[in-house]
């Protein structure tokens, strides 16, 4: 039991981060507003979770100009994908044990 819990990644402790990662795993890229709307978050709340994931190098940020506005999109990195799948498997094992 202890081993399984150790396999869970603390970075994915929060629902918001699970949501961000889930969306990035099934889409090539997702922009800030889409994440905000789908996860029903405030700008500040989303931004703090994003920067945490970015620091861990689970996601990468792309900024581009659309007209005069900047558009920020996010992609999952190979590390992020690996860690998330690892976490997912740990969750599944945890359920199987119950």
């Amino acid at each position, binding site marked *: 039991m202890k081993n399984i819990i150790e396999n*869970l990644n603390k970075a994915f402790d929060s629902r918001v981060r*699970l949501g961000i990662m*889930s*969306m990035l795993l099934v889409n090539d890229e997702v922009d800030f507003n889409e994440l905000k709307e*789908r996860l029903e978050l405030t700008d500040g709340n989303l931004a703090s979770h994003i920067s945490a994931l970015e620091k861990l190098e689970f996601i990468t940020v792309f900024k581009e100009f659309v007209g005069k506005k900047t558009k920020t999109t996010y992609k999952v990195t190979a590390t992020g994908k690996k860690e998330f799948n690892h976490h*997912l498997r740990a969750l599944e094992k945890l359920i199987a044990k119950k």
Partner: protein
Amino acid sequence: MKNNFPKNDPVQDIEYIKEMMEKSSRFISLSGLTGVFAGFFAIVGAIIAQLYLTSVGISYQDFANFVTESIPLKTIIILVADALVVALLSVMFGLFFTNRTAKKKGLKIWDKTSKRLLINLMIPLAAGGVFCLTLLYHNLFALVAPTTLIFYGFACFNAGKYTHDEVRYLGISEIALGLLGTLYLGYGFIIWIIGFGLLHILYGWLMYIKYEKGK
């Protein structure tokens, strides 16, 4: 000792991950009743077209034997108008039911997933439409019915990646039926009624039972 890890229930976490993956990559508001009504209108439309052709003395079997050299423009216009009314009614009812489902789920009807669904549906469909016009232009009338099914099948197969899986299976069924129709050219109306009528009703009903009824 304070046990603060794991904080969340793993079952709920997995449910949440699944839900977010689905909602952000697929258009899940598409109502199965769209298919049921589209199928019903298609059958009525096909019967009207058949009755009309009989009344002006044209039979589909003549197309198959390639004895029909040309169809009067008036006849083509009436047939196209019939098809457009069917398409319009299907889209209107489809939008109504789909909008209703989206509201129930608290989702938007017009977002990235529905846009992606439409683009993937429309490109093969538009190509098929143009191809059928060229068939009419060359007086290859018998090939029109199976061709519409084949291209519609491509469109559904392609778009099915971005909505419920049943749309993909509908696409495969339409392609198979259309190909069969190119072998048995005289059965254009029958394969049309099966393809646009019965298959729509069948898959629509399956979708309705699976995703909407009692939810």
